[in-house]
C-alpha cells in the first residue's frame, strides 16, 4: 500500500515560504513526477514526504494515517538520492543489507533478499565490490537495490539520473519505468528534466515558486496546459510565445504555438520571416525563424528539409493548435478565444 495525501502543506525557512499551501493526492501504485525549474520547492516537498525536513504546517498522510511528525525510518518509505548516498566503506552487499540489518532481520532472510534484488538489478557480479569501484549507472542500481529490499510502501527519487551521462540516463529511465511496472509500488520522482517527466510519469505535478501549477497525465499537460508557465515548461523544444496587441473585446494577451505545430510554406501564411540558425538532428530539423514582429519562432520540420540560412518563409498553424493566454498567463478556453478573434 502506498497512498500519500498532502493537505495544506507548507514549509518556510525563517521568513521565506518555500512551499505555499499544497494539496496533493498520490494514489497507490502511481508513478508521479514532480517537475519544475530549480528552486521551485519540488525537492523540499519530497524531503518533507520522506521526513527529512519538518513540515511547517499542514498534514502529510501516508496510507490514511497522519505521518506529519513520524520520524523518517517509521514512514515505510525508501529514497534514492541524487548523489546515491551509498556507504563508501561497505561492499555492495553490505550496502543493500544495511536497512535489513537495522531491522534486525535474520541472516538467511537478508541473504535471500539480497540475492533477489541483485537478480532484478543485475548486480550479481558486483556484490563484493565497494561503491568506489562501480560506474555511475551501477551505483545508481545499488541505491535502488538498497531501496527495494525494504519493500517500502513508496519510493522517493530525488533527481536520480542527473549525475549520469545522456545515453545511460535513457537506459536507467527505462529500467526505473520497468521496475515500476513489475513492483507496482507508488513512486514519487523529482526531476527538472521535462523529458524524464513526460516519458516516465503516470501523472506529472508541475511546480513553480512553491506551488503546484497543474497536475495531470503527460498528455493532459501537453494538450491542455492551464497557464503559460506549464505550456512553456512541458514540451521540447519550448513552445513559442508571441505577444498580441490587446483589444477591448479580446482578452488574449499572448498566443503560444508549439514548434511541431508550425508548418512552413514558401508562398503564404500567418507569419512571415527569415530563417536563422538551422539545427539538423537527422530525424528532424529545428529552424529558428525571425518573424517580422521581432520574435524568434522555433519550428520543427522534417529531417531532410532543404531550407537554407537566410531564406524567406511563411509559417502557418492550424487555429485549434494555437493556445491563447490572458494578461495573467492563464489559458483561455479555445472556443471563447476563437470567437472573439
Amino acid at each position, binding site marked *: 500500500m502506498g497512498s500519500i495525501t498532502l493537505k495544506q502543506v507548507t514549509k518556510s525557512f525563517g521568513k521565506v515560504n518555500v512551499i505555499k499551501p499544497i494539496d496533493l493526492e498520490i494514489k497507490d501504485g502511481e508513478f508521479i513526477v514532480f517537475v519544475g525549474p530549480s528552486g521551485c520547492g519540488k525537492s523540499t516537498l519530497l524531503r518533507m514526504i*520522506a*521526513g*527529512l525536513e519538518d513540515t511547517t504546517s499542514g498534514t502529510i498522510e501516508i496510507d490514511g494515517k497522519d505521518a506529519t511528525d513520524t*520520524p*523518517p*525510518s517509521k514512514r515505510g*518509505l*525508501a*529514497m534514492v*538520492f*541524487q*548523489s546515491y*548516498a*551509498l*556507504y*563508501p*566503506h*561497505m561492499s555492495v552487499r553490505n550496502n543493500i543489507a*544495511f*536497512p535489513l540489518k*537495522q*531491522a534486525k532481520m535474520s541472516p538467511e532472510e537478508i541473504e535471500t533478499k539480497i540475492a533477489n534484488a541483485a537478480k532484478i538489478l543485475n548486480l550479481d557480479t558486483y556484490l563484493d565490490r565497494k561503491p*568506489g569501484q562501480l560506474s555511475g549507472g551501477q551505483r545508481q542500481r545499488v541505491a535502488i537495490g*538498497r531501496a527495494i529490499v*525494504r519493500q517500502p510502501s513508496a519510493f522517493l527519487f530525488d533527481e536520480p539520473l542527473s549525475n549520469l551521462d545522456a545515453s545511460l540516463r535513457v537506459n536507467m529511465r527505462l529500467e526505473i519505468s520497468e521496475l515500476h511496472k513489475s513492483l507496482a509500488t507508488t513512486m514519487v520522482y523529482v526531476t527538472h528534466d521535462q523529458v524524464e517527466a513526460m516519458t516516465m510519469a503516470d501523472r506529472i505535478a508541475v511546480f513553480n515558486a512553491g506551488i503546484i501549477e497543474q497536475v495531470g497525465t503527460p498528455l493532459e499537460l501537453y494538450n491542455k496546459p492551464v497557464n503559460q508557465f506549464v505550456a512553456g515548461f512541458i514540451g521540447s523544444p519550448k513552445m513559442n510565445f508571441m505577444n498580441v496587441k490587446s483589444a477591448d473585446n479580446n482578452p488574449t494577451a499572448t498566443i503560444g504555438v508549439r514548434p511541431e505545430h508550425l508548418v512552413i510554406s514558401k508562398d503564404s501564411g500567418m507569419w512571415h520571416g527569415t530563417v536563422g540558425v538551422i539545427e539538423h538532428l537527422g530525424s528532424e530539423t529545428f529552424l529558428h525563424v525571425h518573424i517580422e514582429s521581432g520574435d524568434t519562432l522555433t519550428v520543427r520540420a522534417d529531417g531532410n528539409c532543404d531550407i537554407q540560412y537566410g531564406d524567406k518563409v511563411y509559417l502557418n498553424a492550424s487555429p485549434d493548435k494555437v493556445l491563447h493566454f490572458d494578461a495573467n498567463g492563464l489559458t483561455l478556453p479555445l472556443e471563447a478565444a476563437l470567437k472573439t478573434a
Partner: protein
Amino acid sequence: MATTNSRSLARLMLFPSVLLLLAWMIVPLCMTLYFSFLDYNLLTPGNDEFIGFVNYEFFLTDPAFIESFFNTLLLVTGVLFITLVGGIGLAVLLDQAIWGRNYVRIMVLAPFFVMPTVSALVWKNMLMNPVNGLFAHFATWIGVDPIDFFAQMPLFSIIIIVSWQWLPFAALILLTAIQSLDREQLEAADLDGAGPISKFLYIVLPHLSRAITAVILIETIFLLSIFAEILVTTSGGPGYASTNITYLIYTQSLLQFDVGGGSAGGIVAVILANIVSIFLMRLIGKNLEG
C-alpha cells in the same frame, strides 16, 4: 611542460637545498653514533677512548631503561586513547548546530597554543597542587583527602596534562573530517532505520578512519619525545616512575655528564621510534591509501 631539459635543470636547482637538508640530518646522527662508541664523560675530559658497545650494554641493562621504556609506551598509548576518544566526542558535539559555534571552536583549540612548559606549570601549581590546587580545594569541599597527584600518580598526571594539550588537535582534525561527511549518507541511514548509535558506528566512525590514522601517526611522533612536561612537574620521579626514554637520555648525558651513554640512549631511541613507526604503518597505514 616538463621536458628532459627543464627536469634536469630543476634537479640542479634543487640540489643545494637537498644537500643542506641531508647534511642537517646526517651530521648530528653520525656524531651521535660516533659519541655512542666513546667513553665520553664531561667529568673526565680528554679521556674519550673507543669502548665499543659498552655504552649500549650499560644503557640497555640499566633497570631504569626497562621502566622508562614501558613508561614511554604507557604515555603514548594513554594520551592517544584519551585524545582520540575525547576528540571524537568533541568533534561530534562541535559539529552540532549550537549558538556561537565558531567561538566555541576557537576556544576549544586554545590549549594547543599554550607552551608545554606553561601548561605544565599551570596544571602543577593551580590545578594539581595538593595544598593550593583547584582539585585539592574541591576534594576538601566534598570531604575527602586531597590527592598529591605528582607523588601518588605521577605518570597518570603527566598523561592528563599532555592529553589536555593534544585534545584540541585531535578534535580539530576529526571535526574537519566529520564536516566532510556527505549529509545525504546520514539521511539515507535515517531512512534505512538507523538510530543515532548505529549511524555513529556504521557511518561516522568508518568515515573518520583516515583522520584517526593521521591523528595517531602525527601524535605518536610528538608523544615519543615528551620532555618539558616531565621536567617541569616531576623531574622524572619519584624514582623513575615518570621517566620516559627522552628524559632518561637527558639525565644520562646532562645530569650524569655521560655524553657517550646519552648518545647510545639516543641511538636506541631512534631505533625504537623506527620500530614503532614501522609497526604503526603496518597496522593502520593502509587506511591512508586510496
